[in-house]
Each structure stands twice: as structure tokens, then as C-alpha cells.
């Protein structure tokens, strides 16, 4: 039994799960149950392929790719079951400004799944246009287009609300 591989997997999973979960929460528009499902699927898929994943340059990048694709795939499967916009998320969030959370999550929820993924990757994960394009299997031009469309939409929805809640 390759105990070393097991240790590696568990170390990886405990180290990365927090960040994966927070990314998943943003992608899911604050739906913590969906976020947990997405992280579970991501960790499960990573587990199955751990031998190959651990040999790769960047296992964390692999896991984040799996997460984002799991999210998009989930949205495709559930496209007829989108939550209404303006829905207030539940969950165990604490320690952040509740007004900001609700405002931002509601605004994110108004974006299409793919636009939301672009925003989360570019502005939360701080990925480059090229990385985002590779991850979403889009051209860099398409990422730029989607990114500016999403930002414009967020500006409209949030208005001046964002600066008010970020800098009250």
C-alpha cells in the first residue's frame, strides 16, 4: 500500500479545500449546499486520478479546473432550474459585511454561469486572461468580451452600491 500517496492526497485535500470551497461559494452565488457538492465532486475526481495529478506540475490548478468545469456542467444539467435572481443565500457565512455579501451575491446570481465563472476566475482567483481562456476552453478574445460584458452588468446592478459597501 502506498502510504506516501495517501498522505499526499490528504495533505493536498486539507490544504486546498478551504480555497476550493470559497471559490465554489462565489460560483454558486452563495448556495453553500451546491458549493459543498461541487467541492466534494472535485475532491472525489482528484482522488480517483491522484497518481497522475500528484505527478503533474500543479495539482492545485488541476483541482480548480475540475471545480469550474463541474460548476459549468452542473449549470448545464440544471439550466431549467435556475434560482430566481435576488435570492438571498443561506449558509454559515460570518465575519463579513452582510450588506456587501447579499448585494454582491445577488449581482453575481444575475450573470450567466459562464460570465460568473469568468468574473470569479479573473477577479477572485486573479487568473490572467490566457489562463481563464485555457480553463474555460475559450479564446482570449471571448474571455475579454465576456469579462467586459459581465463587468458592465455588475456595474449596472450594483450601481454605486459596491463602493458604498466597500468604503462606507
Amino acid at each position: 500500500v502506498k502510504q506516501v500517496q495517501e498522505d499526499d492526497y490528504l495533505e493536498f485535500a486539507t490544504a486546498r479545500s478551504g480555497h476550493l470551497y470559497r471559490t465554489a461559494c462565489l460560483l454558486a452565488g452563495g448556495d453553500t449546499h451546491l458549493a459543498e457538492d461541487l467541492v466534494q465532486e472535485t475532491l472525489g475526481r482528484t482522488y480517483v486520478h491522484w497518481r497522475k495529478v500528484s505527478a503533474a506540475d500543479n495539482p492545485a490548478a488541476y483541482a480548480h479546473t475540475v471545480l469550474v468545469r463541474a460548476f459549468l456542467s452542473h449549470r448545464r444539467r440544471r439550466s431549467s432550474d435556475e434560482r430566481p435572481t435576488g435570492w438571498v443565500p443561506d449558509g454559515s457565512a460570518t465575519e463579513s459585511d452582510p450588506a456587501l455579501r447579499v448585494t454582491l451575491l445577488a449581482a453575481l446570481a444575475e450573470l450567466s454561469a459562464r460570465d460568473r465563472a469568468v468574473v470569479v476566475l479573473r477577479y477572485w482567483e486573479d487568473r490572467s486572461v490566457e489562463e481563464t481562456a485555457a480553463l474555460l476552453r475559450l479564446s482570449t478574445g471571448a474571455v475579454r468580451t465576456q469579462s467586459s460584458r459581465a463587468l458592465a452588468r455588475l456595474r449596472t446592478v450594483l450601481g454605486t452600491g459596491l463602493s458604498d459597501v466597500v468604503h462606507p
Partner: protein
Amino acid sequence: MPFEDELTDALRSTADGFQPDLTSLVNAGVRDGRRRSRRRTLGVVGGVAALALVGIGGAAASGVLTGGQTTRSAAPVARTVTRPPAPVAKPTVAAPVLPKFTAAQTLAAFEGMLPKGDTVTQAQSQGFTLTKSHGLAFISGPMASLVLADGIGGSAMFITVTRPAGKLDDPSLLDYVACPGHAVRPDITCTRTRLADGSVLAVMQGLESPHSSTEKDWTAWLATKDGGLIELDETNSAQEKGGVSRPEPILTKAQLASIASDPLWRTLAAKLPAPRVR
């Protein structure tokens, strides 16, 4: 401040407010991985049996993880406010006690249950094993893998002892001993039995995957009343992706059932800590 920067700040602040329960997340991930790999022969992460995960010490409780992450305490400790405030000792949680059953004992026990006269090669085993990572401790249950051969050919097999739940009546456990429907896996013949002590035994005999033609994978699952899970898996090949070495796996259905339900494995499973439930 440009809108993009404000957005980044807002995303960070919002995301940081989501506090994961790492113990549950990692347990669920490992369980998901096991479920995904359950029809893959021999293998994955060496047949990892790490399902019991408990918080230890103060590291998780104090929220120190790499990458600037924070976590809720894996083992919340109630505190009483006293007046005047006195220095409060760092909450401590007893480190889990590692049950005693070694790799050699596991292998000897498993070999002792196999048909006499057959030959054992490529044997590997593990006893109860403690892994610490980021303030959490994982206890893996005993497991053994080997290739058993008679005059016809070798059959690779493994047995693992885990504890995915605290009791039998738990969907995450019952899922393992649920027979797949004929519509899903027409190749699998499955028998489900409730044993005298309340444990549920399922023996599944089918192909390695629905697309296989000759590669077979037979498994006995035993879910115990304490939430333990014994998996005994055998194939009709002598090594992973090594081609078929015999028409059928070496152990019969009755032998699979008998070995998986041996009281020793149930006793060992009960020694594993039950995963936390929230």
C-alpha cells in the same frame, strides 16, 4: 478606486466570510472518490482506506492553515466567560488513540481466511495508520492486497476496513450495499443479505466495467451496525491492467461472503472513530 479593484475587494471579503468545515469536506471528497473508483480494480491511491478523520490539537481550532485559510474548529470547545478574565489555556483536544493492529497482523489474518494450498504473491498490507495534516488527523483502517493463484491462474484482490458512518442507517453507508439496478448494470448479479447481528452483506459479481468483455470484478461489501464498512474485491487478472489470467476470479461467491463477514473485520471497523456528522 477603479471598479475592478472594488470588485476584487468585495469578492475577497465575501468569499472570506464562507467558513468551510474542512473535516466534512475532506471526508465527503474521499467518500466520493471511493464511490467513483469502486469498480476500478486495485487501486486507486493503493486502495486508500482513509475515511476516519478527526480534529486534533489546537492547530485546526486556532484556524491556522496554509494559504491564509481559516477554518472552524474541528472540535468546538465550549468556553465559559469568567470574571475577572483569567488567562485562558489554549483549548486542547485529546489526540485520537490509534488502535493496535499491525500490517503483519492484517496480512496474516487475511491469508488465514484464504483457501489452503493456493499461493500468495505481491502481498502488501497496512495496519491502523495515523496521518497528521494541517492540524487534522486521519486514521486509516487495516487493509491488505495480494495475488492469489491456483493451478489455473492468479487473481488480484484486496480487503479494506473503513468506517464511513457512525451507524448502519446512514445513506452514505447504505449506498455501498445497495445492489445496482439491472437497468444500470445488467452484468452484475447481486445478493443482499441481513446478517444475525444486523450487518448488511452485499455480494456483487460482474464485469470490471460495463464495457468490459472478459475482465471481471467481484466484490463483497459488509456494512456493520456501527457504520463500519468491509470491502473485499477480487478480479480475474493477476495485476492491474494486466489482462485476464483466468476465466473467473478465484474466490467463489460463498468464500467472498464468508471472508468479508468474518467477525475480526467487524471488530476492527468498530475501533475506528466514526466521522463527525453535522
